[in-house]
């Protein structure tokens, strides 16, 4: 007979593995998909970021010097703040994994598993994803940067101390973020009935995402002795946790400026409050919710009082547009991903425009370059976010209805898809920009010209988004490692933002001349027609519902048989 401890250990390991895989929704994946590959893909992405962050440190070390003064402080704070934000984002995206759901309870409750084992396995799996992100993100930067941060005479002991200080701070800062988010979740779960908690969760998640991103991109830079000691900044310092852990790092590293002593104390207090708050509130929520999960249903569905059956184009266009709209509005997962991408994009737009308005750009009599850039970015980001979200399936097993009702050729579906992107992506952005142009009271001629240019740009982006997309949105299975749209998204955002600014300046010039404006429009229309022709040539005759790896390897379907048979 196995001892009780050994049984619990074995149960813990089994449950941990199950919960760890639950972080990825396996129901959305293609039959060929390997969840481990998805985890590796994310770890590689973070490790690549780490490598890029470590490059300046490597260059500095080759120069033989240490990174001191304001530059050193900026680097220290940047590393801590970035780690905290990334871990926070992972924890927010992992929100649903924190508390057991109905499926967990219905499957596990009849089994002889203690609640405490279940809870421990859940917590261990919950901490694994942010932990992996934290380690991957600091894989290179966490080795190279502390070499430059070493204090004292710079000897080997100071180097070891710098590494210890860096990793301790990073782990504590990351844990603080995870615990703080769990504490928020625990408190809401305790305050609200379960069904309301589930309903409110999506909004809290979106709010937390926006908060994390806004703080990361928009918080002022205070990494200088003058800024740290300025009385007007003390309130800000006390409110920004990244500065608390910046102070803690300096204290542990032995390089602390006296102005950071209070911040270091805040870090210690903050960590204990967050971890204590998370533990108590989650335990309470856990034991309070467990019995109710079986008794109560999940989110009580709302009656969709308004019947949206207004015709939008032909019947296929109506079906596709309404299906896309309803999925975006009602699926929590899709709404989350959409707000994640739009949130990051909009924050960068706001930050960039803030930077431009502060950099003394020449004022013009027409529409400002910052406004033109913002409107173009808004259009591009909205459409790219839609494209990213459209490739995440909503209910793969329900796809059969789309197959048995396909009474029109695949190219009709592509036309309907283009229509739905125009209606749900381009037109709302156009209306927003038109409203803003009206409020800002820009002259009507350049404003109208800009709206025309924006519409053609939007149509061109839609064509680019539809490149090799022979699917109905939200219906094709997901295959980790195949779709690189996420990387394309970031590449577009980071690489072309400067290019787009040049484009905005050019547009500002051509908007003042009717002929050049017309020429610009003709060029854009030609690009649209070219892209559309390319899409028509490359598109297949079948709609795709199952994502497959490219046929680099051909399976011979040879099955190994046992010696007996």
């Amino acid at each position, binding site marked *: 007979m196995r001892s009780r401890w050994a049984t619990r250990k074995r149960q813990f390991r089994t449950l941990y593995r199950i919960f760890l895989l639950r972080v990825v929704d396996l129901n959305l994946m293609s039959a060929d998909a390997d969840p481990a590959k998805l985890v590796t893909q994310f770890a590689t992405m973070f490790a690549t970021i780490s490598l890029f962050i470590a490059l300046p440190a490597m260059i500095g070390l080759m120069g033989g010097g240490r990174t001191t003064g304001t530059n050193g402080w900026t680097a220290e704070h940047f590393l801590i703040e970035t780690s905290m934000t990334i871990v926070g984002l992972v924890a927010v995206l992992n929100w649903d994994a924190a508390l057991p759901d109905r499926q967990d309870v219905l499957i596990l409750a009849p089994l002889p598993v203690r609640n405490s084992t279940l809870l421990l396995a859940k917590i261990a799996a919950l901490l694994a994803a942010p932990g992996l992100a934290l380690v991957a993100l600091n894989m290179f930067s966490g080795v190279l940067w502390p070499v430059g941060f070493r204090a004292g005479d710079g000897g080997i002991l100071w180097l070891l101390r710098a590494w210890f200080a860096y990793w301790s701070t990073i782990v504590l800062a990351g844990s603080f973020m995870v615990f703080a988010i769990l504490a928020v979740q625990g408190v809401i779960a305790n305050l609200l009935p379960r069904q309301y908690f589930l309903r409110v969760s999506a909004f809290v998640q979106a709010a937390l995402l926006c908060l994390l991103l806004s703080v990361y991109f928009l918080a002022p830079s205070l990494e200088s002795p003058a800024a740290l000691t300025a009385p007007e900044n003390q309130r800000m310092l006390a409110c920004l946790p990244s500065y608390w852990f910046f102070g803690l790092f300096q204290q542990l590293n032995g390089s602390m400026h006296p102005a950071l002593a209070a911040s270091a104390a805040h870090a210690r207090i903050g960590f204990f409050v967050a971890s204590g708050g998370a533990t108590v509130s989650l335990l309470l929520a856990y034991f309070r919710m467990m019995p109710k999960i079986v008794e109560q*249903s*999940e*989110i*009580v*569905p*709302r*009656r*969709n*009082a308004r*019947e*949206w*059956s207004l*015709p939008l184009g032909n*019947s*296929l266009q*109506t*079906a596709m547009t*309404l*299906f896309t709209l*309803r*999925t975006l509005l*009602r*699926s929590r997962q899709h709404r989350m991903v959409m707000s994640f991408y739009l949130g990051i994009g909009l924050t960068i737009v706001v930050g960039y425009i803030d930077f431009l308005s502060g950099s003394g750009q020449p004022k013009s009599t027409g529409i400002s370059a910052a406004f033109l850039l913002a409107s173009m970015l808004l259009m591009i980001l909205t459409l790219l976010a839609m494209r990213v979200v459209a490739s995440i399936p*909503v*209910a793969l*097993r*329900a796809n*059969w*209805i*789309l*197959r*048995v*009702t*396909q*009474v*029109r*050729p695949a190219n009709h579906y592509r036309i309907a898809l283009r229509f739905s992107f125009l209606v749900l992506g381009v037109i709302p952005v156009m209306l927003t920009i038109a409203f803003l142009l009206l409020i800002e009271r820009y002259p009507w001629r350049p404003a109208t010209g800009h709206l025309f240019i924006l519409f053609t740009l939007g149509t061109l982006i839609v064509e680019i988004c539809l490149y090799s997309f022979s699917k109905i949105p939200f219906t094709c299975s997901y295959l980790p490692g195949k779709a690189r749209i996420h990387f394309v998204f970031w590449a577009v955002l980071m690489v072309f933002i400067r290019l787009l600014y040049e484009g905005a300046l050019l547009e500002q010039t051509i908007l003042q001349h009717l002929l050049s404006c017309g020429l610009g429009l003709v060029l854009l229309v030609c690009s649209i027609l070219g892209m559309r022709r390319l899409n028509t040539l490359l598109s297949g005759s079948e709609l795709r519902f199952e994502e497959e790896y490219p046929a680099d390897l051909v399976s011979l*379907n040879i*099955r190994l048989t046992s010696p007996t048979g």
Partner: protein
Amino acid sequence: MAIPDLRVPLMGHCILLLCYVVFYIKVVTAGEHMLELLNVSKRYSGIPAVDNVSFRARPGEITGYLGANGSGKSNTMKMAAGLIEPDTGEVFFHGEPIHADLMTYRRQMGYVPEEPHLYAHLSGLEYLAMASQLRDLDRKSANQTIHGLLRLLGLHDDRDLSISSYSKGMRQKILLIAALMHNPGLVLLDEPFSGLDVGSALILRSLIQTLAARGKVVLFSSHELETVERVCSHVIILHKGRVVADDSIEHLRTLMSLPTLEDIFSQLAVEQDADAISTEIADLIHA
């Protein structure tokens, strides 16, 4: 010489000719409208799921498709619905291979799948409206049909609720409406009684008979042998992917000298001795 009166035999010949033409049209048209599977096979990783299956389902007839779990029923239904392509063999409707013009075939086919997988974030009405739009049905008449069917099946009051809150029986009714709203000539029903309450099951049973009486081809797969015995005129029994019986129930009874369809099915498609296995199970868990 008096000319014989030819009117009577001529009229007789004309009536005979007319009867022959009517009979010919009926037989030929019936043949054209039937669903036929010819030597259809499907393998997964080399393992046969459906093995050389051939049968015909005729208009006006209810063809029962029976088999144990894993015998290949649902795979055959999916091939008949055009959802999966057979590795070998062909499915014909109206005498034409369905894959030659799948879209025309889909317009004439209604399909109720084995599991009620639906888009749970839509309401019942939204789901049905989407299905009608995808089928390119006339908006007004489709709307009338959907509301009428929802009312008749007792779902009208819940039409605006999200499908996630529907019971299995309610989902099954939505599937039925989606399969019938376009008045299909061929109805494929894979376990349609699953989850239905007694009242709804009685309505469905009667509906299947009415559909067949109105000349539709009905292929109906089920585990409920009693219902199949009552409803179907013709049964096909599948065992390990192969057809082991294809005849009318009456003829099978006479041929096998067995009183019920359950006995026929047990003899043809059930290999295990139920009593021996249940004893073994009890022994195993007791050990």
